């Protein structure tokens, strides 16, 4: 019950946050010059048609009124219609969102798996060449711009070696009857590899370094010494005692990393032509498609907050000393 109350509290804070964000964005978008119609001037719409369009978008009303309508609709779960696509912004985004999430979740899983195991291994072998080289590689991967890494991998594996596709999510011309079929096939996997690996490489470095540092600290703890004194096997000490506790700080950075990954997906999606949400935001912003941009931004915000919440709960669950408050 208390957990429920806690979650409710967190969600309320999240809603407040989102509300503030939405408000800021709403006005930000509308204060600057340029409206969605001016983007289509080349289509030769005359003035009257432009005004008709503006009216159709609801942009002819005073800004305060627009805001009230927007918030009212939002409360009803209506995110408004995308100016570009005509249909509900949520619907437009939902699909992109799925694509982004699949890419990001895959890469995060790979990243944390690599990060945790490699970080632990490096720390266990501290002060050796293995540790040094591993740490340096991790640092470099961490500091290299993700799009650049992507470009290099793309040049090598797709352009030079031609073993992986150049981008996109599916080979064009494939038909799918349902979503499952779309995501669960070899072709999709092949397209997933490069972007997921690029993102994973980048996201793995931080958990790796954190895990390493935290392992190094844990190794010095008295309970590790006691575990040795107990005559436990080294492997068991590493797995059950050292890694288990060293994992805790890694959990806390999970949320940050996930937020980063989702936010940064725009770069990966750009390089690999992944039909995800990040790309859509860029387009929506430059087309002044306010509802779409706002919806996408909100969704990312919600996801960031959710990941934070999950990480916090997970942390409290994993560390018996820590309580949520």
């Amino acid at each position, binding site marked *: 019950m208390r957990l429920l109350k806690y979650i409710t509290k967190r969600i309320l804070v999240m809603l407040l946050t989102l509300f503030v964000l939405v408000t800021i964005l709403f006005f930000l978008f509308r204060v600057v010059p340029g409206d969605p119609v001016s983007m289509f001037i080349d289509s030769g719409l005359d003035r009257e048609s432009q005004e008709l369009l503006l009216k159709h978008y609801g942009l002819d009303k005073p800004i305060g009124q627009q805001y009230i309508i927007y918030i009212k609709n939002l409360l009803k779960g209506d995110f408004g219609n995308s100016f570009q696509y005509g249909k509900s912004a949520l619907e437009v985004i939902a699909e992109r969102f799925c694509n982004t999430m699949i890419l990001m979740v895959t890469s995060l899983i790979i990243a944390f798996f690599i990060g945790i195991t490699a970080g632990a291994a490096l720390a266990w072998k501290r002060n050796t060449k293995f540790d040094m080289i591993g740490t340096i590689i991790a640092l470099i991967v961490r500091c290299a*711009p993700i799009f*650049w890494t992507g470009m290099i991998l793309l040049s090598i594996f797709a352009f030079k070696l031609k073993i992986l596709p150049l981008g996109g999510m599916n080979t064009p011309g494939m038909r799918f009857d349902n979503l499952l079929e779309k995501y669960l096939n070899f072709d999709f996997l092949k397209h997933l590899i490069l972007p997921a690996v690029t993102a994973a490489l980048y996201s793995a470095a931080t958990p790796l370094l954190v895990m390493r540092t935290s392992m190094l600290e844990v190794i010095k703890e008295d309970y590790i010494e006691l575990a040795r004194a107990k005559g436990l096997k080294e492997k068991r000490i590493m797995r059950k005692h050292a890694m288990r506790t060293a994992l805790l700080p890694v959990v806390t950075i999970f949320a940050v990393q996930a937020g980063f990954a989702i936010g940064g997906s725009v770069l990966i999606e750009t390089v690999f032509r992944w039909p995800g949400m990040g790309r859509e935001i860029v387009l929506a912003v430059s087309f002044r498609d306010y509802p779409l941009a706002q919806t996408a931004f909100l969704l990312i915000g919600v996801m960031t907050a959710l990941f934070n919440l999950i990480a916090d709960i997970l942390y409290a669950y994993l560390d018996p000393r820590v309580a949520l408050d």
Partner: protein
Amino acid sequence: MITLNKILRMLRNNKVGMIGLLIFLSFVIIAVFADRIAPYDPMKIQYDSDGGVKRLQPPSKEHYLGTTWMGRDVFSQMIVGSRIAVLVGVISAVCVVFIGTNIGLIAGYFGGTLDNVMMRLVDIVYGIPFLPFALILVAILGPGIKNIILAIVLITWRNSSRVIRSQVLSLKNRTFIEAAKLSGASHWRIIYKHIAPNVMPLSLVYVSTTMASAIMTESSLSFLGFGDPLQVSWGKILYACYSSQAMFKAWWWMIPPGIAITLLVLSGYLMGRAFEEIANPKLRER
């Protein structure tokens, strides 16, 4: 806990930090003397003797890193590009940490409602996805360094202020602060004379890491085409390379900016790690 002198001394003893500092300083020097080092105007289109544009020439004696598709000298672009990186990195880092440290100090020290309000604000800012926000802000306010820095500062202060606040929370209950209180020191004296120097290593950690992330952000935004259009920056070089379809052909155009970004960002992280070790002695014996 240690003194500023000791920080410098330890940095000298800290190989990692030293390497970081050296890399950073070399880039600063390059940035300062960029005009003199760069053999050509980075935006100038280079023509060969028969008046043709020198498009996509591989590295040669005249053009150390070859030319771009528009016939611009990559090496000069690299040199001049360091300016934006260093500028954005340093300015945002200083702003961010100045704001973050002060908020952290004040919220942490006074606590109560003030703290509550500030930390809720931090919570809200934490809810903002960084890159998308920066992107929207820059797209709306117009691409340009000022706006990029603004976007970075508007969001990144949250990290340092939260961590510094918690450091202040623990410092303020440390006995030497209570001792200072007992000597009758005023709040501001305690904050700025007694607490602030003790959070300095932590602030320096954030100066370094913020610098690194600011540089990364600038290059990401530039790569997405939101960089300052009239200035050369590494991200923009990469963008130009990517968008002109030359990335598979002209390695000399694609590789150097990435390396430069990596190195400069790395220098920030290395310095950050060094300061972290100084701030947190537990990490030191490695």
